């Protein structure tokens, strides 16, 4: 899909990054291309070592690509040193300057840009207000809590009004509650400032709740770019489905296919129709993926799409997971039920059950 030029804040074109020399060469990024739109909350999501932080460092200028271009509003910034790029970073460790106060930290970027003193003061005051840190502006950064340091790091990076804000797993050091608060806070800041955010995380839940679009990365490549719903409901590859949320994998054989829908036969000889991504031609032995919450448990095995024996019930508070040992063998199939005040049916382990799911709940994916 060609994107309109000029609408993109960042365009990464065919970027390769190789570390090491000779036999020890490792391609941290293997010819990556991606466009990040203006005013977008864009997330690079993937397991550690997938290249997401490398890509962020290339955009920030801490490293230079082995090949390829990085365009910022149409201008190639790949050869520029970091201090010449209108891009700021929130570091995972915050990297606040320990010998300066909160206010001095926030004003540092503006000071380096040679802004007049009164302008710096006004902007710092505005930033302190934005991140609700006015009361602590004279403190040393070692005298404030982790959550407060996080806010200062954000304010410091936002103060020079960068074209793009880069965030390198900024929430990973916070505890669960604070992390939830900061997720909402970050969305608010992005809305209020209108700055393009590029957010790096390995936490799929964080990515789904905060992002406008997500790029899922693995082994130096971008596997899929899309909205959280695209990525979750229509994963392009098995890795994406596996990495984001929980997924059931069902082995089967393609019997026939037509216009993006394949008919797949299971070992238990039941058949189902399932969609598959564009540009993929499923044949022979394939794997179907079904999200646990897209499947339903039925007491009458005859009504199920597939059948099995209930082997385990795990209670999670908000929902309950039912593990079903399928008649055809293979891994346990998990069905997730939202818990409500009055759950109509109660199940016991050991009974025969049916697992039911709609056609569009199942997808055939590339391994």
């Amino acid at each position, binding site marked *: 899909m060609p994107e309109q030029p000029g609408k993109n804040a960042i365009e990464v074109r065919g970027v390769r990054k190789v570390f090491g020399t000779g036999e020890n060469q490792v391609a941290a990024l293997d010819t990556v291309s991606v466009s990040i739109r203006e005013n977008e909350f864009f997330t690079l999501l993937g397991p550690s070592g997938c290249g997401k932080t490398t890509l962020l460092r290339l955009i920030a200028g801490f490293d230079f690509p082995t090949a390829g271009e990085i365009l910022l509003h149409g201008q190639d910034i790949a050869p520029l040193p*970091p201090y010449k790029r209108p891009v700021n970073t929130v*570091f995972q460790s915050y*990297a*606040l300057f320990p010998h300066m106060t909160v206010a001095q930290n926030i004003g540092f970027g503006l000071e*380096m840009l040679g802004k007049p003193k009164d302008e710096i003061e006004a902007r710092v005051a505005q930033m302190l207000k934005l991140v609700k840190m006015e009361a602590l502006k004279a403190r040393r950064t070692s005298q404030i809590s982790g959550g407060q340091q996080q806010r200062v790091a954000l304010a410091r990076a936002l103060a*020079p009004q960068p074209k793009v804000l880069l965030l390198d797993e900024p929430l990973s050091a916070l505890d669960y509650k604070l992390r939830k608060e900061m997720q909402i806070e970050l969305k608010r800041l992005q809305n209020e400032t209108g700055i393009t955010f590029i957010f790096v995380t390995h936490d799929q839940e964080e990515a789904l709740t905060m992002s406008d679009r997500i790029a899922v990365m693995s082994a130096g490549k971008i596997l899929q770019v899309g909205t959280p719903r695209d990525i979750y409901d229509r994963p392009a590859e098995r890795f994406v489905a596996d990495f984001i949320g929980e997924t059931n994998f069902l082995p089967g054989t393609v019997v026939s296919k037509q216009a993006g829908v394949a008919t797949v036969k299971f070992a238990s000889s039941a058949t189902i129709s399932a969609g598959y991504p564009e540009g993929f031609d499923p044949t022979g032995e394939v794997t179907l993926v079904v999200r646990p919450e897209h499947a339903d448990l039925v007491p009458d095995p005859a009504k199920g799409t597939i059948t099995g024996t209930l082997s385990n019930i795990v209670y999670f508070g908000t929902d309950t997971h039912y593990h079903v040992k399928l008649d055809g063998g293979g891994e346990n199939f998990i069905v997730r039920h939202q818990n409500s005040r009055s759950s109509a049916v109660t199940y016991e382990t050991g009974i025969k059950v049916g697992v039911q799911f709609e056609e569009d709940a199942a997808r055939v994916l590339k391994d």
Partner: protein
Amino acid sequence: MAEPRVMDIKDQPGFRSIAVICLLVLYIPVLILMIFSFNSGSLVTHWEGVTLKWYGSAFLNEEFHSAAKNTLIISVTATIVSTICATLAAIGMTRVKPWRGLAAAFMVINLPLMVPEIITAVATLSFFALIAGVFGLNFGIGNLILAHTVFCIPFAYMPIRARLEDMDLTLEYAAADLYATPWNAFKRITLPLLVPGIMSGAALAFIVSFDDFTITQLVAGPGQTTLPLYIWNQIRRPMTPEINAISTILLLVSILFVSVSFLIARRRAK
């Protein structure tokens, strides 16, 4: 009694007594030296009563004054120059891409710590004799300053390098990210954070230069007597407690410097 989960050396039998003996062996001679500086008799081995007169005569002693002046000129200059060299060397060796010979360079800088001082002394003496012989050059007290500067560099280098290695490199990335040019990042971030390391390095260099005897003894020319040389010359004559008083003053200066550098390092570390 609950079993201790990790071995605590303090629980080992005899730990306390051995510790006390070690401390006594270390400090009793120094204590005796200090106590006899207040001896009213004129022998350093026979106690007669308490007096401060040896401090008075030390302060009035012209030779002591001139030796103190030489020592200060040499050690202060050597401290400043060697600390600057050591700082530059430490930055050059921690803030660059690893290059072939980096380990060798590190060894070369620290080798003087391992070479017996008398060897360095003889080598330095021959070096100055050579320049004097071939080029007819003699820098006077400059010879001593040069010699001291050179052997102080590794002492100053160690704490500065340690501090640089401990420093979070992300801070320098953050500075560059916030539009600081490499020079501004150094001036505003690296250097201020390096100050405690530089202070410890300078204090160490000062102490080493201040009480150096071997190299100074060989290199010093006439009229270049430093305090350690002066004390050495005095004890070859019949010794009076004035020497104890002078030694005590030297000791106090050393303690002062070490404490100041320790306090600065501790305050900055917080």
